[in-house]
């Protein structure tokens, strides 16, 4: 019973945050449509046959280029390995930058404490 209550609480916070985000994005969209001199088509959608130079993967019909997001468009074998390595690399870098100085500091503090105890003895 307690666990169900906790799950409901987590889901409730999740729902409230989701609602706020949807409202914020919709309000932002309404605002940008109202403020732009709208002449029939949003500027980010290109006409049929245009290239996808900036890699957004958006097509005029509102659809997306599958390959851009889902990898069905024949992404090279090395590309996904690069993506995976990049993600692991970013995390490893962040962990090293934060955890290493903390670990060294801890070791130093322990060493100082050991030395002070030895000095007292």
């Amino acid at each position: 019973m307690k666990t169900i209550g906790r799950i409901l609480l987590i889901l409730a916070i999740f729902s409230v945050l989701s609602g706020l985000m949807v409202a914020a994005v919709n309000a932002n969209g309404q605002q940008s449509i109202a403020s732009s001199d709208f002449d029939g088509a949003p500027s980010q959608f290109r006409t049929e046959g245009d290239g996808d130079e900036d890699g957004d993967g958006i097509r005029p019909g509102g659809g997306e280029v599958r390959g851009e997001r889902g990898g069905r468009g024949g992404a090279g074998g090395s590309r996904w390995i690069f993506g995976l390595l990049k993600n692991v690399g970013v995390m490893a870098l962040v962990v090293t930058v934060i955890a290493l100085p903390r670990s060294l500091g801890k070791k130093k503090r322990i060493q100082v404490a050991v030395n002070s105890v030895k000095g007292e003895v």
Partner: protein
Amino acid sequence: MTNEVQKNSTPQTKTKLWLDVLIFVAFLVTMDPHSSGIAIHEWLSLAMIATLTIHLLLSWDWIVEISKRFLGKVGGQNRINYIVNWLLFIDGTMIMISGTMISEVVLPVMGIQFPADFAWRRLHDMSANIGLLLLGIHTALHWSWIVIAFNKYLIRPVVRWIPARQKEDASI
């Protein structure tokens, strides 16, 4: 959080460790839809809601304790941890919601389809990148727990198992 391995009961710490490893691997797979394909990307992300909920439930006592004392006496590390965890939760929600809005597989299977919105796509990419950084910080802040738990439940048992196996082989 550092002394969680000692404080928590062994089965719970073990569960937590393997669940965290599972979440980490799942996160890496979902972060790269080029390798997994869009269907796995979406279904795995959906499944992660359940695993992340269990992850939160396993840390519930800590969450409640720090929530009560946040404005009072809390150590600096716990305070930073708490803030990072909230940011991760908010960012995770953003990833899930924006992902739902641009879903190509899961929602159409359920017969739901939202109109394509450029803003959600941008938000999804941005929140995923922020999520990667936040997960890195979250991992770094729990690094000592990870090292202790890995030593206790993976490395030490394996190290103990190898000589035992060699002895068994020698006796045969």
